């Protein structure tokens, strides 16, 4: 009896669970009719708007809206509409490949869409770049840092980045420096902090594993002893006690985690700190958000975090103006990537002006031709890969439950 029941029920249940999990999707909204007079075009963004990334992406979306408000939603003869798409699902609590593909397809099938601001997570960009590329739709990411999306450097997978642009012209740009710089800066910082033996973990995602690999390679090159890793963690595990025990057995003085908050970084921090209260913990920009401190609790204290740029409050020139305007307008503190959202939107508007047409190919070429753009992040250009000319890296610690931007330091990538 029991056997037949099990055989009958187990697969059915699993299949049902999968089917229910996969079928949640939204029908695309009908495109509103074009307004008379000026031609209406659309800019969309695709960011994780559900889940704990929301705190971060709220401030990015605010900044995009700010950039549009500044020009009154008009560039030349065009009236610009903005659509804020979500590439996360509630069930996952973070970005979802199916949702991202849906957003990309929705964008290319809406003839009014001329630019795609996104994605936030590098793994999501991997999904949407090829879809948008074939339609000549330009992408400007405010936050992707995985190197293989634009260039072939040590540590990226074979065939990257060409696999993302199958027979189409490069359409992808980003306003944030890539992780070949950030991972190297982190390793150099670890050495400067006096670490000699490091243990490397990652969340097995494109971004997390990528930056952990760069960190490991650089660490070995500059003479640090890499005790283990990059080793992937199970991001849905209830605890990491056995893993922490394993790490303690190798007695490192610094543990590096390449990954995002949503990969259970908070619990990982708690379990490692419980058995090794003295160990230094370091992570990349993926945990540079308030959600990380909330999840880790007291274990977050003292964590070292790198970031490709400066914190919002430390920006100068136009960046400082933007910071002041942001605070005045939204009455809240922008998170780390808000300024990048602002510059991404500004770069798109600037390219629209120069292209002077709603032709997707022309706008893509205009975005790639961005030179010496004077934005909130400083003066920057896109190179032929779509990478920014900015290379500044900074590091800060968590102090008293907040990111200590006042004492953030500029890091060396050499």
């Amino acid at each position: 009896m029991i056997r037949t029941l099990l055989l009958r029920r187990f697969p059915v249940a699993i299949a049902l669970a999968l089917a229910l999990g996969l079928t949640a999707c939204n029908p695309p909204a009908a495109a509103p009719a074009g307004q008379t007079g000026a031609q209406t075009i659309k800019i969309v963004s695709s960011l994780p708007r559900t889940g704990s990334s929301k705190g971060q992406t709220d401030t990015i979306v605010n900044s995009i809206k700010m950039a549009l408000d500044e020009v009154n939603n008009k560039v030349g003869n065009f009236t610009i509409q903005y659509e804020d798409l979500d590439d996360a699902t509630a069930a996952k609590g973070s970005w979802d490949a199916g949702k991202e593909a849906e957003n990309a397809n929705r964008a290319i099938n809406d003839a009014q869409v001329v630019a795609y601001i996104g994605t936030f997570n590098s793994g999501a960009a991997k999904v949407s770049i090829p879809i948008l590329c074939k339609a000549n739709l330009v992408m400007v990411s405010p936050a992707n840092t995985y190197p293989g999306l634009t260039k072939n450097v040590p540590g990226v997978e074979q065939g990257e980045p060409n696999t993302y642009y199958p027979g189409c012209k490069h359409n992808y740009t980003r306003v944030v420096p890539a992780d070949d710089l950030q991972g190297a800066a982190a390793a150099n910082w670890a050495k400067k902090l006096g670490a000699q033996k490091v243990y490397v973990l990652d969340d097995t995602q494109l971004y997390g594993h990528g930056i952990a690999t760069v960190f490991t390679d650089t660490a070995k090159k500059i003479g640090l002893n890499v005790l283990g890793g990059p080793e992937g963690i199970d991001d849905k595990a209830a605890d990491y006690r056995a893993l922490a025990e394993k790490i303690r057995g190798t007695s490192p003085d610094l543990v590096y985690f390449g990954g995002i908050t949503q990969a259970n970084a908070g619990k990982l921090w708690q379990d490692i700190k419980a058995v090794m209260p003295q160990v230094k913990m370091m992570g990349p920009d993926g945990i540079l958000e308030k959600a990380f401190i909330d999840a880790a609790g007291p274990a977050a204290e003292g964590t070292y975090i790198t970031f490709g740029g400066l914190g919002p409050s430390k920006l100068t020139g136009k960046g400082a103006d933007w910071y002041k305007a942001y605070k005045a307008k939204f009455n809240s503190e922008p998170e780390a990537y808000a300024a990048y959202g602002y510059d991404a939107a500004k770069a798109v508007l600037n390219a629209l002006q120069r292209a002077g047409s709603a032709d997707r190919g022309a706008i893509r070429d205009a975005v790639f031709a961005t030179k010496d753009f004077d934005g909130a992040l400083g003066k920057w250009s896109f190179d032929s890969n779509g990478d920014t000319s900015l290379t500044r890296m900074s590091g800060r610690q968590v102090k008293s439950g907040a990111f200590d931007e006042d004492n953030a330091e500029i890091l060396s990538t050499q």
Partner: protein
Amino acid sequence: MWHEQLAQILLIGITNGLLIALVALGYTLVYGIIELINFAHGDVFMIGTMVSLTIVTSVPAMMGIAQPETLTPPLLGLLLLGTLLVAMVVCALLNAFIERVAYRRLRHAPRVAPLISAIGVSFILINAGLHWKGASQVYFPDLLPNVDILRDVVGIQTPVRFALKDLFVIAIAVPLAFGLTQFIQRTRLGKAMRATAQDREAASMMGIDINTTIMLTFLLGGALAGAAGLMYGLYNNTAWFFQGFRSGLYAFTAAVMGGIGNVQGALLGGLLIGILGAVSDRLIDPRWTQAVVFGLLILILVFRPSGLLGDEAPPRS
């Protein structure tokens, strides 16, 4: 050195395993009596953690204490006891309510019907948790005193850590499981449960109220899930709307491994999964742990289709 490492890994495995076992008991109880895999059980457990989290943070806040960690030991004990009671009662009522609404009418329907409604309830609870506490892991206050028993209390110099937290899990889970076995085997109600499991019709002819008995089984399972929910929060210091899915899957596996419907089997299965998971995390790679655990499940089912203790003394044979 290696034996200390081994002892540590076993300890981690045993405590994790006992937590899994507590959830597994709920699956096994319900399966034993109505042969339904109550997929919502893992999520009732999640709600237990959320209820506990709400109480341990909001009650001290109402008393004007921002950090529940700073409460004096007697007050803290009282708070935890109260939380345990509330979590158990809420989860028991929730589980009984689920039975009344989603399963009772389907008791005579084809087997797959209540299974689907169980999955539906599971999704409803997951979304309720998501709406309630948000999508990310939430920090659960570290309320148990941080005492290292072997070193600070017993005075043995050893790198093996055995904290009050670990003892707490063992001290609650083992008596609960033992008490449950005794309850099923010795009390009149336990007898009624076993009778209902064996033959519902005959039991009702003997004057057993089937609906009440089944309802009580759900109440009992829910109360266990509530207790497990609080313990999970106190032990792991984290709460997540999706925790019930993974814990539920492991607990269900534990129940099947030990022989579903069998209380000792659930305990054994939970311990086995906990220890195996810890060993795999330590020796192989955390990414392979699930493959190892479910690989063992397949092996056990191939050689002993009714589970490890499946044939011995289930409430239903």
